[in-house]
């Protein structure tokens, strides 16, 4: 890889100088071939990203049923208005946020801790790094079905273990908090390793000199972690927070299969763990209201845009603050 990539860098100069002498075809080549090179992405994005987005927006303005998709009745913003008046939508929105919080926050903190540990020189480091990645490589469906067994009310391993220490058996399916914690466990199990590896990569790019000088200044390990590691990881942390937020907003597979598929899209008997993704699926594929499902999809999209903007906004504000603080510090000195 590196060998094929390096030589052109050295020959860039001479090539540029000779550019005036290349034939017309060569100029065309230089002018248009870059477009051809980037075209695959844009063509695929238009077909599988942009078109569905726009078509979904179009569908969301109509009343369409899957049983007769040819028949479309103009509904204007009726589907959106219907959503705002539907208590099940608000319930799903609330569940998405609570499950998102229970799964994302501990997950990222644990990932940070694990990455810190893996950053030390320890025996079998590669083994641990690969092992952390294993849950991520497992299919959602398979993992969820196994967890569904573990969380079984009557014969589940977790309730059995809790029983050994005298805890009364917990109804992991029907309890609102219990079921949300159960689902969050699956998410956390799957994604912690992935995030830890990303943090690890970020940590390894922090120059060792910074730690050395911090140590010379008398910073403790904890202070080094806070002021050098976390500082250096800022862009990485922002990246993982954004990706996790998007993932949490779209949470679907885990709650769908949480009861072994029996309760499916309704998200439990009382919709106690119905997320926005499941609500969308319920509207579209249990009740066949395609127009409404499309409206849910767009609302989800907007929510994600708002959340991501908020995230980056906060991050930018904080770094501005700190830059200002740094200047002030220098001035004082």
């Amino acid at each position, binding site marked *: 890889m590196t060998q094929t990539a390096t030589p052109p860098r050295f020959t860039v100069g001479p090539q540029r100088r000779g550019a005036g002498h290349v034939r017309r075809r060569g100029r065309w080549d230089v002018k248009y071939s870059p477009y051809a090179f980037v075209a695959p992405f844009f063509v695929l994005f238009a077909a599988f990203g942009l078109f569905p987005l726009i078509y979904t927006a179009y569908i969301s303005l109509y009343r369409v049923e899957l049983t007769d998709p040819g028949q479309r009745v103009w509904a204007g913003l009726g589907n959106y208005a219907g959503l705002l008046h539907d208590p099940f939508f608000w319930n799903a929105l609330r569940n998405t946020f609570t499950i998102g919080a229970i799964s994302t926050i501990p997950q990222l903190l644990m990932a940070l801790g694990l990455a810190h540990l893996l950053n030390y020189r320890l025996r079998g480091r590669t083994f641990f790094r690969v092992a952390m990645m294993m849950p991520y490589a497992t299919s959602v469906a398979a993992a969820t079905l196994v967890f569904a067994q573990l969380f079984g009310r009557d014969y589940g391993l977790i309730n059995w273990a809790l029983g050994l220490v005298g805890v009364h058996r917990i109804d992991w399916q029907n309890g609102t908090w219990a079921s949300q914690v159960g689902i969050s466990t699956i998410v956390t199990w799957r994604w912690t390793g992935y995030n830890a590896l990303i943090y690890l990569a970020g940590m390894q790019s922090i120059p060792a000199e910074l730690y050395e000088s911090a140590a010379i200044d008398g910073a403790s390990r904890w202070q080094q972690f806070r002021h050098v590691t976390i500082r250096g990881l800022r862009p990485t942390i922002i990246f993982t927070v954004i990706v996790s937020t998007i993932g949490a907003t779209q949470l679907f597979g885990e709650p769908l299969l949480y009861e072994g598929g029996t309760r*499916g899209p309704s998200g439990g*008997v009382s919709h106690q763990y119905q997320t926005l993704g499941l609500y969308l699926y319920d509207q579209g594929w249990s009740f*066949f209201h395609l127009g409404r499902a499309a409206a849910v999809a767009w609302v989800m999209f907007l929510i994600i845009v708002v959340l991501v903007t908020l995230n980056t906004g906060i991050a930018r504000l904080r770094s501005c603050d700190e830059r200002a603080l740094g200047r002030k510090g220098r001035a004082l000195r």
Partner: protein
Amino acid sequence: MRTARTRRTGIVALGCTVLTATALLSGCGSSSGGSSANGGGKITLTIDLFGTFGYKEAGLYAEYEKLHPNIVIKETDTENEADYWQALQTHLAADSGLGDIQGVEVGRIATVVRQEASDFTDLNTLGASSVTRNFLPWKIKVATTPSGAVLGLGTDIGPEAICYRSDLLKQAGLPTDRAALAQKWSTWTGYVGLGKQYQAHAPAHSAWTDSATGLFTAMTGQQAVRYYDQSGKPVYGSNPLVKSAWDTSVEAARAGITAKLTQWSPQWNQAFSTGAFATLPCPAWMTGYIKGQAGAAGKGRWDIAPGPGATGNWGGSYLAIPKTSPHQKQAYDLIAWLTAKDQQVTLFEKEGNFPSNTQAIGAVQNYTDPYFNNAPVGQIFGDSAKNMPVQVLGVHDGDVNTALTNALSEVEQKGVSPQQAWQNAMNNIANAVAQ
């Protein structure tokens, strides 16, 4: 030093890639549907089903292929009917991915007849008029459009009885004799009353019945008019019969005589062999399911007696041919054969699916099932079928039933008040059928 590390991470990266790729491949390795005539002049018929129709298990495909050497049958099966129905709707809307033959559950047949008649072949045009008289009249009637097109041939019907564990009943000091039990639970009140008696003396971790929802579905299966009336008007909220079935189920739930299980969940499956419940209302096809879940160890422990009211229908299906199938004639020949007398008899004896073909019903009359302590299942289910009401089926029967049974589970498993749960069910139905 540096090169060694790079190589090692390279190997690790490769390992990860291979793993991920394998996971992806196994995730996406579903076969594509559709039918084709391959090189040797053989015709492949695809048959798309849900749950357990039992054709493959009973060896009927192999037999048909032997009789018709030019036909190859390929079955795809979805375990959960709700998932199957969703996929079928998507395939119909996209006009692709449909099998040559599609199964349709009785709770969905009204939707097919009223909203999707144009997607399915009128079987009369393929010669069905000569066989429709062999079926129970109501079975064909509900699959017929107002203009007379027959959209499906009947497979099985679901006459109801009560399946029970005689060993558990004996331990609780109750009679285990079929006639005595049938007499004690001749009404649903009697069934719940006997349940309270059982619960008082029951072995540890054993309930009278599996769930309040099973009870409710069995009860509503005995009513001619349940969720919709003859004119197609929804009456689920006002029908006193639905309300009384609800009240009885709530009573059972609150009396603590149910095992609080969700039917078709993994826990429910496990409970068949653990003895977590002693009885359950069972339509004929569920006997096959019980054999599968309770296994060889359950043989002789389970028995069957006529249930309260000695009738009712729960489930049963149809086979239909989408218009997109390029092998209409061959598909029709296959479904006519699968639903004919001899094959329905075989299916009942091997899988428990009770015939909808009247000649087959006559032929299985004296059949007894050794697994269920030689219970005269042919007679018990036959009598139940004879008294079966002709049910009025509505377009949203499935959604209404899901909402009501979910609400019952709320009362049973979460302790929600029955009034609140009923209200939740009404809200859920309104949400599902909203236009």
